[in-house]
């Protein structure tokens, strides 16, 4: 990604550098580093005037302005993991169903593909939590056991809800990972993890 360092530059230089960078791409994302309010507001106004989306983040004495050109999407500040604090947190994935989405057949395929891809991800999660019918994936009869075992081998903590296993009559049929209780689940969801939920 292109990074334009506009530290110590006086107006209108930051805008001119931003313009040159945006003019050189059809679409894409650039980051403009500014160290004063005038440059921040001018670059933002210029880029927005050109139809780009600007996401400012405080960085040191100034701001990093992430400018997306050509995409119809936004980079909201509340996007999971967008703040530096959240980015450094370990990830936990909460799986609430044995299928991904509503359609049974497609849901099956997607869930299998998800778990298999997850084990090959560059940044695998710290924890995967299976709840509700999600526990059917870790118990006897699941076709995803191998993929989930691959995750466990990577050091991913695989946890299944004891109450849920009990409910589905699979209490003694857990094939991969450990059983967890609601106390641990609440701790994971509320403290120290960036949680992504799959239903």
């Amino acid at each position, binding site marked *: 990604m292109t990074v334009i360092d506009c530290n110590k530059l006086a*107006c*209108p230089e930051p805008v001119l550098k931003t313009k040159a960078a945006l003019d050189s791409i059809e679409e894409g994302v650039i980051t403009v580093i500014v160290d004063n309010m005038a440059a921040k507001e001018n670059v933002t106004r*210029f880029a927005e005037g050109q139809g780009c989306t600007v996401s400012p983040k405080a960085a040191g004495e100034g701001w990093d302005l992430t400018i997306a050109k050509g995409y119809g999407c936004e980079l909201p500040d509340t996007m999971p993991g967008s703040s530096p604090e959240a980015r450094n947190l370990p990830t936990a994935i909460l799986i609430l169903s044995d299928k991904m989405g509503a359609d049974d057949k497609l849901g099956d395929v997607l869930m299998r593909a998800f778990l298999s891809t997850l084990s090959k991800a560059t940044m695998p999660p710290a924890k995967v939590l299976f709840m509700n019918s999600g526990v059917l994936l870790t118990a006897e009869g699941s076709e995803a056991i191998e993929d989930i075992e691959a995750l466990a081998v990577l050091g991913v903590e695989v946890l299944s809800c004891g109450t849920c296993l009990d409910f589905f009559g699979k209490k003694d049929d857990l094939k991969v990972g450990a059983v967890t209780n609601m106390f641990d689940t609440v701790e994971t969801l509320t403290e120290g993890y960036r949680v992504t939920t799959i239903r």
Partner: protein
Amino acid sequence: MKLEIPVDDSVLIGLHTGDDAGVRLLDERTALVQTVDFISPVVDDPYTFGQIAAANSLSDVYAMGGAPITALNVLAFPCKELSREEVTAILQGGADKVAEAGGALLGGHTVESPELFYGLSVTGLVDPAKLISNANARPGDKLILTKPLGAGMVSTAVKGGMASPSHTAEMVRSMTTLNKKAAEAMSAVGVRCATDITGFGLIGHAAGIARESKVSLIFEWERVPLLPGAKEAFSLGMVAAGAYANRERWQGVVEVTAKNPEETLLYAADPQTSGGLLISVAPQEAERLLEEIKSTGTPGAAIVGEVASGDASLIVR
């Protein structure tokens, strides 16, 4: 450490009021007006820059109701980057404006500097009975602005190569126009309060009037003239850093109720080079004075608001 200035009864206007120039009484019918100002280039053409810098320096005398009599050049420039011809052109631009103002250029002082600066120290005379200051606005007065705002934005766009030739020409025309005729017209109708709009923008200089006159100034934003190209420059991010600094400094005394308040505040904070006069005039004289000013070289002048009793605040509505 605090700057200590000895009290002198003959000083009618000194440092403490933040006015445009200092004024010292010479005799019952004569007071001396003195000012100095210099600026960095706002345009590429050296002769034009000289004219603008001189018009900007002379303006402070006009804002006090005075007439310039003498002037001295103040020039700092990088010897290796500027040719003799360019330096001569700058000084010629200044000399021509001093002559147009009716003053005599007596000399000046030049130093080498990594950056180019040019301006003038100007001395003028004023009848103390007709002295104009920023402390004499009265509730009920109308406010006339003699030149459109937006010069800071358009000149930033010029610097960035993002101003159209016609917008640049219009800005140059405004900046090279002396406030001479407008000042003569206001003195003729007995105006006692005015200031020129320069680096602090409309809000900064208007705040000076509000503070020193102990009044509130109310601006009708739809009537405030803007240079052509100012809005384009604004949306291209061509806003001078000075506008943000002015906003920071004065936003506490300004209440903006006009639509697009953030945008409006930046226009009102835009620093002007060789800007117009902001005149506080008795309501019954306002229309007549406006017509006179419009017909003598500054057709963009407008009545932009009025003075109300108040607490040194500004309202932009």
